[in-house]
């Protein structure tokens, strides 16, 4: 339990200045749900902590048909879970949010923190990847945009440079006739880290074929990943049971899971296949008619546990 200085900026500029002044020894915190644990165990020992809670405006959530969904990095997972437009238009993200921890943690945890923490098991990350999220990053040199697929560099490592802050995640508007789901595989119904997470988002063409397919997987590789080969197997194809099963098989092959206290690698790979198949099936089934009611979405997201 090392001591540190606690800094509280009231604007983004002030925060950037504090980060620049602090150098290597300073750590930014949002909801602090990851931070406190790593500080207590001594894994992180910052000289100073810059808390973003009092920087106004960074928690906004907005949607319009042209730009899609904008999530301020400080938006809490709870706010995302509760958001009607997200439940309607980005059901896989709502599923990821509702499968996340428990209410108390969701109230603190931020979407930006989940991304910047870069855990392969982060529950919102497969859905963000599947919806093609772009990151807005602000730093000493100004602002830049980066696709989320390039943001993750390894467990706990991101493309953020020293002094940079993630301020926003932007998800383009899904085409019409798009369905999606995230399933979290965990033995316990809440407050559990994913053993595997799978998200699928499918947009259908007028002839019923798959126009766009994204499959994203959590906790089966060093970073949350898109299963591009599996997506390719389905794009342009009819979403038949056989095609979906084949895509799921390819997805499982593309992973590189580890064995740990939660699961063996072999079981993880088996589960990727099962969960990919189930998320794809659900995405296809709801593409035309719209998402399941939220209660059902929640049950589906946690189906392996509850």
């Amino acid at each position: 339990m090392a001591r540190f200085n606690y800094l509280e900026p009231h604007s983004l500029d002030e925060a950037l200045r504090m980060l620049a002044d602090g150098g290597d020894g300073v750590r930014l915190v949002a909801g602090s749900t990851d931070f406190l644990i790593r500080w207590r165990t001594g894994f992180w020992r910052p000289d100073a902590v810059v808390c973003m809670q009092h920087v106004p405006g960074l928690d906004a959530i907005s949607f319009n048909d042209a730009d899609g969904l904008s999530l301020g990095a400080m938006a809490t997972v709870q706010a995302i879970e509760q958001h009607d437009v997200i439940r309607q238009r980005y059901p896989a993200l709502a599923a990821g949010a509702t499968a996340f921890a428990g209410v108390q943690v969701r109230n603190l945890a931020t979407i930006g923190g989940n991304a910047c923490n870069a855990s392969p098991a982060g529950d919102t990350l497969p859905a963000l990847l599947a919806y093609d999220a772009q990151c807005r990053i602000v730093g000493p040199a100004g602002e830049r945009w980066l696709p989320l697929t390039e943001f993750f560099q390894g467990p706990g490592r991101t493309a953020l440079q020293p002094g940079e802050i993630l301020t926003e995640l932007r998800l383009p508007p899904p085409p019409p006739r798009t369905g999606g789901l995230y399933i979290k595989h965990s033995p316990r119904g809440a407050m559990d880290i994913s053993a595997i997470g799978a998200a699928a988002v499918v947009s259908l063409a007028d002839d019923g074929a798959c126009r766009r397919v994204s499959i994203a997987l959590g906790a089966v590789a060093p970073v949350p990943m898109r299963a591009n080969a599996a997506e390719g197997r389905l794009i342009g194809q009819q979403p038949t049971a056989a095609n979906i099963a084949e895509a799921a098989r390819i997805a499982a092959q593309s992973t590189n899971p580890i064995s740990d206290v939660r699961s063996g690698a072999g079981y993880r790979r088996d589960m990727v296949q099962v969960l990919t198949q189930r998320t794809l099936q659900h995405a296809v089934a709801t593409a035309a008619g719209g998402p399941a009611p939220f209660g059902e979405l929640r049950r589906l997201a946690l189906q392996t546990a509850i």
Partner: protein
Amino acid sequence: MTSRNFKVLGQNHPRVDAYDKVTGRAAYAADVYLPGMLACKLLPSARSHARILRIDTGPAAALPGVRCIITGADFPDVRFGSGALRDRYVMPRDTVNFVGEPIAAVAAVDEATAQEAIELITVEYEDLPAVVNPITSMQPDASTVHPDLEDYQGYGFTMGHNVSTLLDADRGDVDQAFQDADHVIEDVYRSQGINQGFLEPMACVADVEPNGRLVIYASTQGPYQIRAGLAAVLELPVSRIRVVAMELGGGFGAKLRLAFEAFPALLAMRTGRPVKLVNTREEAFTMNGPRLPVTNYIRSGVMNDGTITAREAYTIFDVGAYLGAGPNSGIGHGIGAYRVPNFRLRSYGVYTNKIYVGSYRASGVADMTFAVESHMDHIAHRLGIDPYDLRLRNALREGDVSVSGAVVPSNGLLETLQAVKDAVAWPRQLEDGHGIGLALCEWRSGSGPSTAAISVNDDGTVSLLTGSTDISGSDTSLAAIAAEALGIGMQQVIVAKRDTDMAPYTGQSGGSRVVYSQGTAVQRAANETRDKLIALAAERLGLPQDALGCEDGRVYVLDNEPQGLTFTQLAAASITSRGGPIIGTAALSSMPYTPVFAAQAAEVKVDRETGQVRVLRYVQAQDVGTAINPMAVEGQLEGGVVQGIGRALTEDQQFDPDTGAVRNPSFAAYLMPLAIDTPQIENILIDVPAPDGPFGARAVAEPPGFGPPAAIANAVYDAVGVRVKELPLSGERVLAALKGQSPALTMDVASLRRAEGIAAD
């Protein structure tokens, strides 16, 4: 016979401490703040087995705010033990035996400083070969955890090398019975390490009174056991130690014995200031003994009609670095709730370089029940007999002889089976992937030294003094027993707080003994109090005692009810009476054998693709005798089942295969069930009064937790036709079974038999 016309018993009484607990006012050990108090932190061993060459405390001692640092060398050179075998130092002197073992303690002005100091201590180790797997540990060439074992006090019942205990039970001619049996069926089961999961981590405050006496404010199930343990390791007479039992935030066996109290105690003695130690959750996982994995070999001889004629069970209990709670209660349960005329039961306690084994809600019995009750279903399926019928055919009946040789008194075993059968409409065909499983659980009502004193106050209330710490509402039940016996309301009974200077000596609160044994002492003390009240009233009223009754807080004339004296009047009168103030006391050392039986059924759904098991419904019927406080009884039954479901499905204390270190020391990785994971639990209370319990009550607490692993495993078999013999029944394990890829579990029983000179095949 007891009167079944109760005034207080049999009704629901909210816990006497409910308000204090809900409002956060109940005082736990961590809530004790004394002037000038220091904070204590512990340095855990980083090695599983090593000689300590040097501990450098210099830089830590130089840190501003640090007041005192102690290591093993600061304690008297005495070993202690939690059982008969004295196999450990309270803090190791020269050798560490598991990762996490406390090897130094710091007292500083605050917790952060103490922790900083801990991190400044450097230890030089010389590694010794470590042994982590108990099966390996039993091999003659395995490295030895305790090379000096033979010199330890209490060595008498150990086998030597790494086998710290061997418990046995035999009856009849087992080998002949196996030869004569129509079928011989054998299995090996394995159950996992389990953490007790108490809410309140270990905490205590030590203080030295001006007269030099040591006072310990403890979180404990056994204040007298703490006192005895401290006296041993500090070489103090017990009269120099006072233990105040604070509210207990869950123990489940983990707080039965001396834990870390000696560290703040010695620091307080050295500094002259009060010292507080509060464990973190990680420390609760890595320093204080959980249950460790158990491997169970079980073999039965069975006749064609399903009659079990022979049973052999060899059980290997990993005890970790120190015997701790050891195999404990496991041994007697190798035959379960059945009449088995010939048996050979063996329980080995084997040392490894892991955290030492602790107690948990009838230690070992849940492991045994998982094996025995899974095995029962295996027998049933092999013989094509309904699992319910097999249980009914072999179930113990009144007059049978229990495993320990005691005659089984009247009991509700058959009624519990019938009740569960009716509740789940057994046998029932279910949709694909759904199944029902049964389990039968048995335990005995806990015994041991029990005392109580009841004194009548000026206002007609009574004060009840016992040495038992409250666990799971036992204070409320003891108050109810006193109220019933005295003919007063619950509100008229004050339950005094525990303090070894004031309360009479008693055994620990554990093993389902408080209400049964301690409750009997309370009932007897209350009876004596009532007799004295009646005697005094008789004297004052000039009437014979048998002309008087005692009810509603007064002694009255049986054939003229309005005439009488209230307790208030009698209390006043007693001051100047011949007998003096009224106090009733009772003490006992043990109680007769009184079994407790429970039948349980789980209904599950299995996902064939993920292997995940979901419990949809749980039904249990338990013969509780008289339900002293039905609400509390149901709470115990449900709590036990929830713990059992955790054991069955998700809880798994894992250890590093090389170092033996706990791999998942947090509730984020050690998965206890949450409300969302828990099905509707239906409780059926069977009331066959115990011949000897207070007002016919039996023990309640232990059996509910035994059944779920087997009931759920049996339900999984019913659902998808595979038997999983290893806990927990994780999706991974069930899926492997569905693919026919379960790892084979084996035990080399032949060589264990040979070591004992048994020639059987």
